[in-house]
């Protein structure tokens, strides 16, 4: 018998696979996606499809260039998920070239130069989003107010194609700031948070999604539901999301209690922006987060803290994506230093002492 064909135990395997995992995550995103598609209308749907399509095309192109088979990899759902999450983090009416450039950054530069699935140290979707944000701050901060499908004034399919592909949206006319962006701009001209916060949608509206923002970040409650679904299916564990949200809430609450004119409240931090999307779907990306549970807690804490720091002090209104990338960079060091305690050993790795010796 050929020994090379031999393999060692085990000869049993759990019914798990990459495809299973990825499709569960996609499934969890569907409710929020459908809601947002309704909320922002046809142009958003066209934008969403363009983004996912571009990511799949980029994946196929990279596989082809690397002379690798398309078969398992293109359809394992990871590229679709990257595209999906990228679309969720873009302004809903972004023009086609935003989607395409984002896909090139996400899939080609953040994923395939490192060797493809599983090898990338940085979250591809977030690399795409940030490269776009830094390159096209205007387009990437021009959000539209909700304009539900079938409502008066909502563009039809043909008009939507023109908006996305023809560059015919007069963004100046319809754009609105996200809550975080609004508060930040107001603060920059000396208007205290306590005052500007009263002009943003109330928490209930924010949780429901009735406010301007990125395609997928608006409906906090549906994202939360998707996240809980992932938790229930054990695709993700609670460590990262809980650490992110708790840290953000804590920092917000403490600092807004100290200086309400300067800092927004904990619940504002949690319900605005991409907190839930980030905590449940983005910070939890397996590939770019630590593998051990304690490591994940540290990672989540870091994401929460950095998000708060960037939101509160830095030039950008939203910090989740940056925070995730920054903690991605720290992940190898976290993995290096925070390991589970080995059986029969101390935390430092020395054998436990024998009693009586």
């Amino acid at each position, binding site marked *: 018998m050929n020994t090379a064909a031999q393999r060692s135990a085990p000869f049993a395997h759990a019914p798990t696979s990459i495809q299973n995992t990825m499709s569960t995550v996609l499934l969890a995103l569907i409710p929020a996606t459908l809601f947002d598609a309704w909320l922002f209308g046809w142009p958003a749907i066209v934008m969403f499809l363009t983004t996912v399509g571009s990511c799949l095309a980029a994946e196929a192109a990279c596989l082809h260039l690397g002379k690798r088979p398309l078969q398992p990899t293109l359809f394992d759902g990871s590229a679709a998920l990257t595209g999906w999450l990228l679309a969720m983090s873009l302004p809903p009416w972004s023009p086609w070239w935003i989607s395409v*450039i984002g896909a090139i950054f996400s899939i080609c*530069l953040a994923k395939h130069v490192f060797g493809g699935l599983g090898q990338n140290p940085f979250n591809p979707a977030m690399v795409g989003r940030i*490269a776009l944000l*830094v*390159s*096209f*701050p205007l387009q990437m901060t021009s959000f539209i107010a909700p304009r539900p499908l079938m409502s008066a004034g909502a563009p039809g399919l043909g008009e939507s194609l023109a908006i996305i592909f023809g560059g015919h949206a007069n963004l100046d006319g319809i754009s609105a700031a996200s809550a975080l962006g609004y508060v930040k701009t107001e603060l920059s001209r000396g208007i205290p948070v306590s005052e500007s916060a009263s002009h943003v949608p109330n928490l209930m509206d924010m949780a429901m999604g009735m406010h301007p923002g990125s395609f997928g970040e608006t409906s906090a409650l549906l994202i939360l539901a998707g996240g809980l679904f992932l938790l229930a299916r054990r695709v993700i564990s609670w460590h990262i999301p809980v650490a992110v949200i708790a840290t953000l809430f804590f920092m917000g609450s403490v600092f807004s209690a100290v200086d309400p004119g300067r800092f927004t409240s904990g619940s504002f931090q949690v319900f605005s922006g991409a907190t839930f999307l980030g905590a449940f779907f983005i910070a939890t990306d397996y590939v770019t987060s630590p593998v051990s549970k304690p490591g994940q807690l540290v990672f989540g804490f870091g994401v929460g803290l950095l998000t708060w720091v960037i939101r509160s002090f830095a030039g950008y209104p939203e910090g989740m994506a940056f925070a995730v990338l920054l903690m991605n960079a720290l992940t190898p060091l976290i993995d290096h230093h925070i390991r589970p305690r080995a059986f029969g050993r101390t935390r430092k790795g020395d054998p436990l002492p024998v009693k009586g010796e």
Partner: protein
Amino acid sequence: MADSYSRIIKDGLWENNGVLCQMLGMCPTMAMTTSATNGLGMGLATAFVMATSNLLIAALRGYITQEVRIPVYILIIAAMVTLVDLSLNAYMHELYKVLGLFIPLIVSNCLPLGRAEVYASKEPVLPSFLDGVFMGLGFTASLTVIGACREIVGSGTLFADAHLLLGPVFSFLETRVLPADTGILVVVLPPGGFLATGLLLSLKRILDIRAGKPIRLAGAHSV
């Protein structure tokens, strides 16, 4: 001898190019390549310093002892840089206004010192001088190419402001490649510097593979 001169030229410009192969002088490579013009200017100034400092070091090396060699080399390089700085300021003021900011930084560029250590401290005067010239020109070429790539993708122009550096005659170089305001801004920001250099290095690798040369996969300076 002729053979070794052609070797010096080839090494400097391509085979052992300061940026692409030795990966020295990365700081100006990143910082000064937001446009082709900047890259060119920085490269030329560096080339001048390298040529003169290599010349001086090779000429004076008999007097330099091992223990103080680094300070002496640096002293010579720094003196050359200051010389360039002062004379440009006085006599070629327009050029100085473009380059002014980054001339002092040539002192801390690893490449001149690297060549001093590796080449000028061991070889005769003329080859050392030529080594300085061609290493400098190779450096200039890399910077210009990287600058051009970043400028085209990032701002949609090529050789913008070339007339400030090279005189009004060269304003024909200034081109607009993409429509105004369509550049991908990251490319001219810090991340773009690293990205462009990384991609250029892999481009060189493709060419090397095509040419059938062995490629080096290890870290930048593994000895």
